[in-house]
């Protein structure tokens, strides 16, 4: 199994956590930060990232700002008030998921 498939279901909490820690970020910056923090293990593809960002924006979890960055425009994403709550909930769900997985994969102690 490819490791990207393992990460796929966790993409939403990962993005919310990155935005929580870094304030506002643009698409490319999110992919780079995820790669840097996971030492190259997590490679978020554009085809997975942008549809998710658009869905979260529509759901009111993210808000956007467009600014000039030299000779081009740049779209920044940040968490809304609802998004901040969602990021906490999302992290708890992920933590619970990891805990349950560990029950299967960690050796049982007597």
């Amino acid at each position, binding site marked *: 199994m490819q490791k990207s498939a393992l990460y796929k279901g966790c993409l939403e909490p990962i993005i919310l956590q990155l935005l929580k820690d870094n304030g506002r970020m643009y698409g*490319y910056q999110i992919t780079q930060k995820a790669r840097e923090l996971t030492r190259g293990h997590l490679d978020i593809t*554009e085809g997975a990232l942008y549809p998710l960002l658009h*869905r979260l924006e*529509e759901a009111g979890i993210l808000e956007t700002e*467009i600014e000039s960055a030299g000779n*081009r*425009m740049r779209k920044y994403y940040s968490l809304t008030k609802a998004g901040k709550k969602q990021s906490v909930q999302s992290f708890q769900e992920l933590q619970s998921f990891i805990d349950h997985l560990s029950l299967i994969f960690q050796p049982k102690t007597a």
Partner: protein
Amino acid sequence: MLTDEQIQELYAYCKRKNILYYDIQVEIVDHMANAIEEKMQADTSLGFKQALEQVHFSFGSFGLRDIVSSKTAAMRKKYGRIQRRLFYAYFTFPKILLAIMLLLGVITVDRFLPEPFLAGTVIFIAIIALIQLIRVERERSVFRKSYQKKLLMTDRQFFDFSFYYLMVILQIVTGLFKNPLDSWVGKELRGDIELYGLTVILILYIINSLVKLAMLQDVHKEARDKYPAAFA
């Protein structure tokens, strides 16, 4: 840092890949420009075109198409939700009560006034509906003249909700049940029922066009604020 010409080349690349909306192009161009710059910095012998090819490959065969379709789906959902909220705001209890009282008033007055009164009321409401239609189209036309680049956020597909089908349903119902209705309520009252039905549909149409106009004005303002470069 890429040159202005190279950035324009990326916009042209988006158009070639059938990404025609500026509000989507902006995001993709910035992403590609960042990736190209990084590749060119890492390998100084790499030219812009070669770096672009590599970046294009990383998007995958359906990457760009998926971005456009996800954005379109998100917009449809968003505007649908706003439209429903604004539309339902016209149907709060006091407003419904007022509408019922007005309708009862029209029916009562209709009995004491000459026959064409009800038809005249319907024509009056139809004229208001027509004025609304003109106002919506005028807003669209004024906005259309002001931009140079197409924006997905202002695309017609999100703002057109036809009430035509309601007219068709009314026609079918009154057509199919013409004879049973005639024998049940009488020919004259059946004619009145048709006119009341038409009145209700026209009023719904007017409310819908008021909602559409308010939405269009808001979205057009937002488009100008967010993407000034798309306007002349």
